[in-house]
C-alpha cells in the first residue's frame, strides 16, 4: 500500500491585488484586504482598555476562593490604606442596582445580556467560585493589584455540588422553545425502529467543559458624566449591553453610550454582560472617576461562562445496505444554579441524515458553577463529535466507505424532522468535492504504518443553521460620491467592516474605495449581535434595502436634472445642489423598536416554518499516531464548505480556518479541569489549558462552493461557526482508522488513544 503523495499546498484564497483607486465592478467575491488590517498590525487600533482618558483609575477584582457560602465579614482597612488606592468597593458600599433578570425574554432585550442572576456586590452570598466580592480602584494598576491582595474576607461556606457525572441522575428534561435553537425533535418511533434494525451502533460520548480564551481578555472602561454613562467595552452585542446596563443602573438607554470599535475575539464569550463590566460601572459611579478594568486571564476563566460539558448517547440502526432506519441522539449538559441555558447539542442530528426515524432529546443538570454560555457553534460543536463518530462506526460495521454512507443518507429536499424545505442543500457536493480534492480514493488500509507511526484518514460532515437578526442601518451618500454605512455592528476580527463595504459598493454601484462604514458604537443605528454566524447576512438584508431606497432617491433626483437612472451619485447630487442624501432602514427607539422586534420575531418564526437554512461542510484529515506512545499529529487537512455566497474569500476562509483551529483545540487538548470538591477551576491559564500551538495545526486547505442560498440576503449563510463543527469527529475517525480504537471522550489525549 502506498500512501497518497503529499499534495502541494495551494492557497485557498489567492492573495489578489487589492482594488486600485477607481476600480469599479463587482466588489463582492473579491479577496479584499481587511480595512482594519493596517491599524491592527501597527497597533493604532484602539481596544476597550486602550482609550486614553484623563483622570483614569484602574480596578482589580477580588475573587472568592469558595463556590458557595456567605461573606461573614470583609476587612478592607489595609487595602484602603495602601498608597494610591481610591476606593475599595464591596457589597457594603456598592450602589444598589435593579436586580438582574432571572430568565431570558426575547421581547426584552435587556434580559438577553444577563451573564447570570447573581447580584454582584449587592449581596453577601457567594454562588460560584471566583465570584468577585470586592474591587479595588487605584491610581495605578500595580497599586490596585497589591491592594486587592490585602482585602481579607471571612466566609461561611457551604459544600458545593459540582460533579457533572455524579449529578447526571438529577438531570431534568429540556423543552424546545420556538425562536430558540432546537434541543429536541422526533420523527416516527426511533426506539422501535432501532430495536428492529439489522445493523446497530450504540455509543456514548463525553465532552468536557471548555473556557473562552479570546486574545483580548474582557476589558471595560467606564466614565460617568452626571447620570450619563459611557462604556468602552469589547462586546458582541452593543444593543443588549446598552439596554442591560440601563436597566441595572436605572437610567434611560439613551444615557448609556457603548463604544465597541474593536473586539479582540469574542466567540460567544462577549455576548453577555459579565460581572466585571457591571462592577467597573459601579466603581466609576462611586469613585466619580473614570475606571478601567481588564480581566486577568484567570479572571476570564472565573467570571465569564464557558462551554457546557456533555454526556451523549448516539444509537443508529441501519439496513445492511446502509439506509439509516433509526437515529437516536440523547444529550445531557449542565448549567449553573445561577443561570445558563442548554446548548443545542442534538441539533445537528435533526438535519444531517435522512434517517427513517429520529429521536433527539436533551436533559440538563444544575451545578454550583459559573453559568455556561455560548462558545462557537454552541451545541453543534459537541453534538457533531458524537453523531459524526457514531456514523463512522456504522460505516465500519457495514463495511461501507464513510463518505458513501453519508451520501447515501442525505435528505433530498426536506428537513427529516420538521418537514421544512431546504432553501438549498449542498452537503453532498461538499462531501464529493472534498473527497476528490483530498484524494480519498487512495485512502490507505486501516492500521497502515509509516515508520514509527500509524496512519489514519478521517472524514466528518458539518452543519450549522443560518440565523438572521434585526439590523438598522443608515446610508449616506455625499456630493463627492462617497457612501457611508452607519450601524452599530461588531468587528471582532472577522472582517465585517470590510465585507460591509463590499456589499454597499455593489448594491449601490459605487467603487469600493468610496465606501466606508461606521460601526461599534451605540450612537449609531442598532445593529445585529455578532452571534449565530448571522451578522453579515443580517447586515446584507438591510444594506440591500438601504441601497435600493438610495438608488430610488438618486434616480428621482437625477430625472429632475434630466439625467438617466443609475447616474453617478456625485454628479446627481452636485447637479441637484444637494450636499448629501441619507436613507434609514429600521427605527430603533420607543414603541417602534418594540414593533420592530415583534415583526422580526414573527417573520423568523414564519420563515423557520417554511425553510431550513444552514451552512454545511465536509472535513477530511490525515493523522499520524505514534505506535509506541499514542502521540497524535495532524498531517493534512482539507475542508469544503457551503456557506452560501462568499462575499470575501480572504475573510471568509480565515473565519472557516479559525473554526477548524478551534475545533482542533477541542479535539486535541482543551479541557477545563474543575475540582469537584471545591467547584474550582484548577487550570485557569494558557500554560495548563491546552489550546493548539502552531506545531499542532497543519496547513488548512479550505474551499468554498460559493453558491448563493436563494432564501438568504445576498445568498449569505454565515461562516463563523460551521468550521468548528465536525472537526473533533474527523480527528477521532482518523484515529480509529489508524489504530482501530474508537475514542469517545474529548480531548483525544494519548492515554485515550493508546488505551
Amino acid at each position, binding site marked *: 500500500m502506498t500512501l497518497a503523495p503529499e499534495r502541494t499546498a495551494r492557497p485557498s484564497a489567492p492573495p489578489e491585488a487589492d482594488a486600485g483607486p477607481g476600480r469599479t465592478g463587482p466588489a463582492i467575491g473579491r479577496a479584499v484586504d481587511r480595512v482594519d488590517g493596517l491599524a491592527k498590525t501597527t497597533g493604532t487600533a484602539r481596544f476597550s482598555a486602550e482609550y486614553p482618558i484623563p483622570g483614569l483609575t484602574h480596578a482589580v477584582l477580588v475573587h472568592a*476562593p469558595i463556590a458557595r457560602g456567605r461573606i461573614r465579614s470583609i476587612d478592607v482597612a489595609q487595602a484602603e490604606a495602601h498608597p494610591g488606592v481610591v476606593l475599595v468597593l464591596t457589597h457594603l458600599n456598592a450602589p444598589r442596582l435593579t436586580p438582574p433578570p432571572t430568565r431570558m425574554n426575547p421581547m426584552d432585550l435587556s434580559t438577553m445580556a444577563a451573564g447570570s442572576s447573581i447580584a454582584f456586590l449587592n449581596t453577601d452570598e457567594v454562588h460560584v467560585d471566583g465570584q468577585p466580592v470586592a474591587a479595588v480602584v487605584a491610581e495605578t494598576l*500595580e497599586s490596585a*493589584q*497589591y491592594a486587592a*491582595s490585602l482585602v481579607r474576607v471571612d466566609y461561611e461556606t457551604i459544600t458545593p455540588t459540582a460533579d457533572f457525572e455524579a449529578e447526571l441522575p438529577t438531570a431534568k428534561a429540556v423543552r424546545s422553545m420556538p425562536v430558540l435553537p432546537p434541543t429536541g425533535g422526533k420523527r416516527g418511533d426511533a426506539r422501535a425502529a432501532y430495536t428492529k434494525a439489522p445493523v446497530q451502533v450504540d455509543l456514548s460520548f463525553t465532552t468536557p467543559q471548555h473556557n473562552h480564551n479570546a486574545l483580548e481578555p474582557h476589558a471595560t472602561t467606564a466614565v460617568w458624566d452626571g447620570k450619563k454613562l459611557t462604556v468602552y467595552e469589547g462586546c458582541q452585542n452593543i444593543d443588549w449591553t446598552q439596554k442591560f446596563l440601563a436597566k441595572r443602573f436605572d437610567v434611560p438607554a439613551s444615557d448609556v453610550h457603548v463604544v465597541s470599535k474593536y473586539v479582540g475575539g469574542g466567540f460567544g464569550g462577549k455576548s453577555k454582560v459579565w460581572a466585571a463590566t457591571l462592577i467597573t460601572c459601579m466603581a466609576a459611579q462611586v469613585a466619580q472617576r473614570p475606571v478601567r478594568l481588564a480581566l486577568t486571564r484567570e479572571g476570564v476563566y472565573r467570571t465569564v461562562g464557558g462551554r457546557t460539558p456533555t454526556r451523549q448517547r448516539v444509537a443508529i440502526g441501519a439496513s445492511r445496505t446502509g439506509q439509516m432506519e433509526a437515529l437516536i441522539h440523547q444529550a445531557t449538559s449542565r448549567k449553573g444554579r445561577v443561570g445558563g441555558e442548554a446548548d443545542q447539542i442534538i441539533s445537528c442530528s435533526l438535519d444531517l441524515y435522512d434517517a427513517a426515524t429520529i429521536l433527539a432529546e436533551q436533559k440538563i443538570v444544575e451545578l454550583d458553577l459559573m453559568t455556561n454560555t455560548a462558545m462557537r457553534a454552541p451545541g453543534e460543536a459537541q453534538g457533531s463529535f458524537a453523531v459524526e463518530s457514531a456514523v463512522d462506526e456504522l460505516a465500519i460495521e457495514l463495511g461501507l466507505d464513510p463518505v458513501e454512507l453519508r451520501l447515501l443518507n442525505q435528505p433530498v429536499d426536506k428537513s427529516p424532522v420538521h418537514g421544512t424545505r431546504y432553501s438549498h442543500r449542498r452537503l453532498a457536493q461538499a462531501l464529493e468535492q472534498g473527497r476528490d480534492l483530498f484524494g480519498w480514493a487512495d485512502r490507505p488500509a486501516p492500521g497502515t504504518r509509516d515508520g*514509527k507511526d500509524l496512519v489514519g484518514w478521517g472524514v466528518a460532515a458539518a452543519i450549522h443553521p443560518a440565523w438572521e437578526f434585526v439590523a438598522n442601518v443608515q446610508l449616506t451618500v455625499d456630493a463627492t460620491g462617497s457612501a457611508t454605512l452607519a450601524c452599530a455592528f461588531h468587528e471582532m476580527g472577522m472582517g465585517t467592516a470590510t465585507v460591509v463595504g463590499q456589499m454597499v459598493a455593489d448594491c449601490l454601484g459605487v467603487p469600493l474605495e468610496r465606501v466606508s462604514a461606521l460601526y461599534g458604537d451605540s450612537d449609531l443605528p442598532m445593529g445585529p449581535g455578532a452571534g449565530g454566524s448571522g451578522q453579515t447576512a443580517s447586515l446584507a438584508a438591510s444594506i440591500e434595502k438601504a441601497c435600493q431606497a438610495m438608488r430610488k432617491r438618486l434616480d428621482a433626483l437625477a430625472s429632475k436634472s434630466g439625467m438617466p437612472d443609475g447616474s453617478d451619485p456625485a454628479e446627481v447630487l452636485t447637479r441637484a445642489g444637494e450636499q448629501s442624501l441619507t436613507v434609514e432602514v429600521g427605527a430603533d427607539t420607543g414603541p417602534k423598536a418594540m414593533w420592530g422586534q415583534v415583526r422580526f420575531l414573527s417573520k423568523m418564526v414564519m420563515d423557520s416554518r417554511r425553510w431550513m437554512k444552514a451552512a454545511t461542510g465536509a472535513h477530511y484529515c490525515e493523522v499520524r499516531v505514534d505506535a*509506541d*506512545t*499514542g*502521540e497524535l*499529529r495532524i498531517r493534512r487537512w482539507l475542508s469544503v464548505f457551503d456557506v452560501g455566497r462568499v462575499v470575501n474569500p480572504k475573510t471568509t476562509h480565515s473565519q472557516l480556518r479559525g473554526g477548524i483551529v478551534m475545533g482542533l483545540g477541542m479535539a*486535541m*487538548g482543551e479541557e477545563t*479541569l474543575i*475540582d469537584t*470538591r*471545591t467547584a*474550582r477551576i*484548577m*487550570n485557569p491559564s494558557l*500554560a*495548563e489549558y*491546552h489550546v*493548539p*500551538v*502552531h*506545531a*499542532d495545526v497543519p496547513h488548512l486547505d479550505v474551499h468554498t462552493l460559493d453558491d448563493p442560498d436563494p432564501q438568504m440576503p445576498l445568498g449569505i449563510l454565515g461562516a463563523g461557526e460551521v468550521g468548528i463543527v465536525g472537526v473533533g469527529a474527523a480527528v477521532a475517525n482518523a484515529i480509529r482508522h489508524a489504530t482501530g480504537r474508537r475514542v469517545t471522550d474529548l480531548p483525544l*489525549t*494519548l*492515554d485515550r488513544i*493508546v488505551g
Partner: protein
Amino acid sequence: MKPISYAVPASIDEALAAIVDLPGAKFLGGGTNLVDLMREGIETPEVLVDVTRLPLAEITETPAGGLRIGAAVRNTDLAANLAVRQRYPVLAQAVLMGASGQIRNMATVGGNLLQRTRCLYFYDAAAACNKRDLGSGCGAVAGHNRMGAILGASEHCVAVHPSDLAVALVMLDAEVEVASRTGTRRIPIQDFHRLPGESPHLDTTLAADELVTAVTLPAEPLAASSRYRKVRDRASYAFALVSVAAALEVTNGTVSQARVALGGVAHKPWRATTLEQYLAGRPATDEEFAAAARAELAQAVGTPSTEFKIELAVRTITATLRRLRDEGGAA
C-alpha cells in the same frame, strides 16, 4: 503583586552577601518562573537579587575534558552552543523541547534547575498544598494529578519536577557548583533535587543562602550519541508526561553501557539505575529493553489519572533505546 525592591550585585561576593543581609531576599534569574509565582502570590520575596549580570554566563572547557556551564547562561544560548550540540546533544534537545522560544531567551540554567513544580494545587493559593504550606495537606493526591508522580512520591506530595534540562543533566552525571559566604561546594546533580518524603516543602538540597554558580559536565564520549525524547499533550509548549534522556553503548549486539534518566515521573529527575544494571551485558533487543524498563517501573504507583504513565514510560524508554541502537551508538 507585592511591592518589592530589586538589587543588582556587582560581584558574586556582593550577591552572596545580599542574600544573607537583605531580609526576604531571593535570587532572580530570567524571572520566567519566579515572577509568575509572585504574580500568583505563591512566592513573596521582599528583594530580588538579579544574578544575570554576574560573570556566570560563560560556557567553558574544563581541564577534565568536560564543559562548565555558567548558571546565568540563557537556555537559548545553551541549546545553540556548538560544543554542547556536538558532545552532549541530549542537553540541547532537552532545552529546545522545553517552554517556548521567548521563555528560553530569558530562562537561565540556574533558574531552570530551581523552577518549582507545575502542580495545579501548588499554583493555586486557595488550595491545600504541603509544598507551599507544610501540614496544610495535599490537594492533588485526590484531585487533578494527571501530571503527577508515579515514582518516589509520598502521601504528602505527588508533584513532579518540571525541568527537562535537569533530566539530561542527571543522565550525564553533571555536578552543580554552588557558593555561599562560607565557601563553595559541588553537589552531584542526582543529590540536588529531593524526593518529597515528609518534607515536600524542600525541592532541593540547596541552602537558602547558596548561589548556583555553574553546572559541570564530565567528559563522556557516549554522550555524543545521546537523545532526549519528550512525550507531551501537544506538539510543543507543554510539560512532559514522560521524558527520557538516554545514551546507549552496544558492542557486538550486547549492551555494554546504558544510561537513562526519566522526567515527568517523580519529584526529581529519575535516574533509572535498576534499568541500567539490568541491561548491562544483555542483548540489545527490543524485548530486553522493554524488560529493563519494566524492571525500573516495577516500583511505580499510579493514581487513576497517572496509571497510564507507567506503561507510557515503559514504551517511551523502549522506543528511545531502540532508536539509539538502530542509529548506532558512539562506540
